[in-house]
């Protein structure tokens, strides 16, 4: 098997960092040599703190994605199918959308205190918008002839949505879902870093404040891996689930 060339630069960089730290004899509260980070990672993995924190962060992110993304999808369907409703909602949507979701942390803290509910609420708010905006465009962009076919066949509204609208928009809806998933992780970790004593973000902050850079970088590295793994998983799912719909839709156009 050939050595994967993409790994050459990262491995060289790691070796250089390790060598620089050792040769200079640097003692630091803010950076750590790769070997110490690897040790800290192994320790955190072994004592269960890393996995527990991961579960907390992913749980909050998933709950927010489900609630906010689900609500965004429902509204996207309604607005995508009804131009009149879309016109009516344009001003409220444009007014609320620019609010940075993390700006809601103080309000959410007042309403729910520390813990999962406030984090889930903020993640929901953040995930609502990509699902709504991309979803609405996906549904408004469905071939109009297909909707006419649904009309002349006299499909009921649920059948029209289930058999025509969602399958026709699915490839693009899945893109919205992937984007919302990435947003959910970013926002969950942000809430944990700034406020909420839970999850990976909080673990990262704890290590920083305890002046344990090796542990801090271990958490950071793991966060990167989790985000990358999540995206890779969704890409595989996209190919598996919608490969046909995806390529057929492109061929037809």
């Amino acid at each position, binding site marked *: 098997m050939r050595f994967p060339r993409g790994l050459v630069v990262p491995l060289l960089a790691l070796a250089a960092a390790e060598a620089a730290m050792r040769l200079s004899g640097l003692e630091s509260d803010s950076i750590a040599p790769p070997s110490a980070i690897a040790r800290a990672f192994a320790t955190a993995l072994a004592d269960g703190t890393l996995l527990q924190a991961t579960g907390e962060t992913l749980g909050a992110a998933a709950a927010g994605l489900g609630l906010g993304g689900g609500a965004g999808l429902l509204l996207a369907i309604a607005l995508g199918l009804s131009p009149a409703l879309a016109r009516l909602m344009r001003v409220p949507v444009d007014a609320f959308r620019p609010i940075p979701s993390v700006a809601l942390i103080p309000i959410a803290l007042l309403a729910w205190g520390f813990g999962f509910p406030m984090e889930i609420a903020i993640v929901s708010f953040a995930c609502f918008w990509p699902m709504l905006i991309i979803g609405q465009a996906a549904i408004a962009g469905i*071939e109009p*002839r*297909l909707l*006419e*076919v649904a*009309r*002349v*066949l*006299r*499909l009921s509204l649920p*059948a029209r949505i289930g*058999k*025509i609208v969602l*399958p*026709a928009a*699915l490839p693009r809806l899945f893109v919205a879902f992937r984007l919302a998933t990435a947003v959910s992780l970013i926002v969950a970790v942000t809430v944990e870093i700034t406020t909420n004593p839970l999850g990976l973000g909080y673990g990262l902050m704890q290590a920083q404040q305890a002046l344990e850079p090796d542990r801090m970088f271990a958490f950071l590295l793991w966060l990167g891996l989790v985000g990358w793994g999540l995206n890779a998983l969704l890409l595989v799912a996209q190919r598996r689930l919608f490969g*046909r*719909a995806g390529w*057929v*839709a492109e*061929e*037809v156009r």
Partner: protein
Amino acid sequence: MRPQAPPLIGFEGVSLSLGGRLILDDIRLSIARQEFLCVVGSSGCGKTTLLRLAAGLLRPDTGQVTYAGNAVTGPAREVAVVFQDYGRALLPWRSAAGNVSLALEAAGVPRAQRGPRIAALLERVGLAHAADRYPAQLSGGMQQRLQIARCLAQEPSVLLMDEPFGALDAMTRQSLQDEILRLVEASGNTVLFVTHDLEEAIYLGDRVVAMRPNPGRIAEVFDIPLPRPRHQLATREDPEFLRLRRALFDFIQEEER
């Protein structure tokens, strides 16, 4: 000639404007049960709009469209529409069988009965071998056959066909013309067939309605007393066919001048 029957579809003084432009002006037309009526005219004369009114996809501004004596207020299951752009009217994520199934699902046919009925419908349009193929894997002619099968699955009384063979090559077009005549003959459908091909209109129709643009109105109605069943060579060489073709051509030429 088919026996005289009471009109099934009626246009009673129908006018329609779209986007501030008068598209159809005072259309009066009745289509008899089991009649094959063709509509011809230059593009922009409102012939597709006429068909969409009959389908209930549009509502007239004045006058009314009737079906079996009642005003048409929306699409009905007994009225099937064959669209010209078959590539867009089929669901690309469903196989041929799945596309036919859509009409049965819409009509609430129980799952257990769908399989045999789908097989029979695909058989009728000559697609039995392609049940598992997806629209993108079918030729244009096969895709249009599939759309016709889906319409037949509605068990309609009326077929509304909007330039259904306009995008097909000449050979495929002729074989589909004969197939549609055979299918209509067998099921006793009433047909409203829009085309810009004058010979196709004469070959298929019991009557041919010629329309005039700006605004769209009916200019002339030609009776087509050619014997049935029709035959691609014999019918097209019939002196009466040639006379009608000349009359219709002259009429359209005059229109364009």
